[in-house]
């Protein structure tokens, strides 16, 4: 936990790269390289995209590439976190043989937190719920910098998720993603780019928190992933943004001073009425159950 009145800084790296599809060993080697680069750049935390260890379009490979939390591969990620803290997406196998689209926060050789993706897109080009089980928890957790939360890609398209983590005290919202390039028209940006820019800025500005969006690049079966990872400050301003479609280690420094300033200017969290929200949601749920 941070000390009161003491400004803390955190230098974050986002490793924007193209995981090989279904080749865990090759991806682990790439992640090791990125850790070394991040350390060189004085990053204390390296954030990697959704399913960075495995690639995205896994289909029937899921049970083969999934890792239990005590697997040798996950142990290797824990070891890497002694040098630089790490958020990495992977397919997780639970003790009862369910498979989750998960991301973990590794710190000093231990797993600090695991988020299992709750909202698995299964429409249009997406078919995640066919292969993965849905997570059951949405939580913020403590880090040396402050409270953090992990929401994976589609999770953030449901505004309820970041409402929960913000109420749970989140200072740094980490969003590992595999956002595909789609919906091109004559506009400057792809449909998916416009949607994410809006989401990231909205979540940073109106919850007064940092947002670190880590998107992958590369193509899988003709689908391109557009990268463009970014870090947005708690006042909604852009801190740093990676190029689209290019590999990059994006580095930025976050400060608790910036968090404090944003929350003084817009004390939205202070004024939030959780009691009203809970009461009204409870009413809505009861009404839905009525005949």
């Amino acid at each position, binding site marked *: 936990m941070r000390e009161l009145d003491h400004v803390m800084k955190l230098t974050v790296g986002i490793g924007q790269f193209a995981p090989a599809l279904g080749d865990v060993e090759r991806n682990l080697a790439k992640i090791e390289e990125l850790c070394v680069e991040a350390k060189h750049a004085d990053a204390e935390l390296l954030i990697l995209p959704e399913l960075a260890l495995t690639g995205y379009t896994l289909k029937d490979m899921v049970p083969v590439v999934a890792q239990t939390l005590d697997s040798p591969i996950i142990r290797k990620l824990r070891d890497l976190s002694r040098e630089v803290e790490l958020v990495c997406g992977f397919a997780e196998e639970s003790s009862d043989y369910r498979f989750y689209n998960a991301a973990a926060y590794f710190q000093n050789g231990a797993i600090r937190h695991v988020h299992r993706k709750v909202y698995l897109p299964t429409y249009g080009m997406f078919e995640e719920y066919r292969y993965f089980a849905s997570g059951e928890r949405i939580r913020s957790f403590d880090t040396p910098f402050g409270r953090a939360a992990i929401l994976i890609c589609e999770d953030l398209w449901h505004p309820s998720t970041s409402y929960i983590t913000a109420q749970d005290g989140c200072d740094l919202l980490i969003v590992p993603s595999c956002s595909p390039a789609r919906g091109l028209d004559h506009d400057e940006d792809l449909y998916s780019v416009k949607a994410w820019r809006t989401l990231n800025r909205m979540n940073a500005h109106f919850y007064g928190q940092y947002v670190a969006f880590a998107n992958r690049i590369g193509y899988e079966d003709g689908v*391109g992933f557009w990268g463009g990872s970014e870090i947005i400050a708690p006042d909604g301003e852009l801190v740093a943004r990676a190029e689209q479609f290019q590999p990059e280690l994006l580095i930025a420094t976050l400060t608790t001073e910036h968090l404090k300033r944003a929350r003084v200017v817009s004390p939205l969290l202070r004024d939030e009425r959780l009691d009203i929200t809970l009461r009204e949601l409870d009413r809505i749920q009861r009404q839905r159950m009525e005949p």
Partner: protein
Amino acid sequence: MAAPIRSSATAPDALALNPDVAIPLLTGFIHDEVTKVGVERVVLNLSGGIDSALSVYLAARALGAENVCALMLPYKTSSEDSLGDAQKCVDDLGVRAMTISITEQVDPYFAKFPDMTNLRRANKMARERMTILYDQSQAQGALPIGTSNKTELLLGYGTIFGDMASAVNPIGDLYKMQVWQLSREIGVPKSIIEKPPTADLWPGQTDESELGFTYDAVDRLLYYMIDKRYSTDALLELGFDRDFIDLIALRVRNSQFKRRLPLICKVSVRTITSDFRYPRDWGR
């Protein structure tokens, strides 16, 4: 033949693409999907038409001209203009090229069936060209690049296992109007952009007279019907003609077989077409 149906429905720029995003997306696709299977080169059939012209420009930009081989495969009735236009692309880009006549391959077969329809002859020629494309793919260690656009894929206006066959198709999600737009952007020779589209399968053939409607009209309809998922009522409200809507919907439905692998009868618990689900980029 009835006059081609034209439609003024919908905004003129509904199909326009931002070329600064589209072209890198397409060249990135070619580069990534080709090189990650351990190959550096591609081959493609260059007809002198706009679709294969755009494909060869994209491939050369993605991989370098030295890694692209254009195959020009004329039949004795192919128009001189087609061959000349194909040659213009080759000269402009500096890609490698081979010209192989298919006349000697197909004429003995045609002689056995003197009453063959134009359609049968066209399909036979398209499939002969496919066998050369795939043979050169093997000979050169190069992936075959596709040249079928989204309009013809949706209408089934192509030969299954003929010109529809390829390993990697950069233009399969581009409507014909978008092929034209990006061709202008990327520098395809003007003579190719301005001539009426034709498969050049018999003298004087043009796509629009054979289809009975213009690409402009059908692309707008397909865009709202397929991409935007408009209902028939919503399409009528946009100003499309009911007969035209029905005709195109039927063509899309009846050609579905061309866009899928052959059906396999399910016997086991794990059948290749239904329960054995892996991406093509498996392990890549």
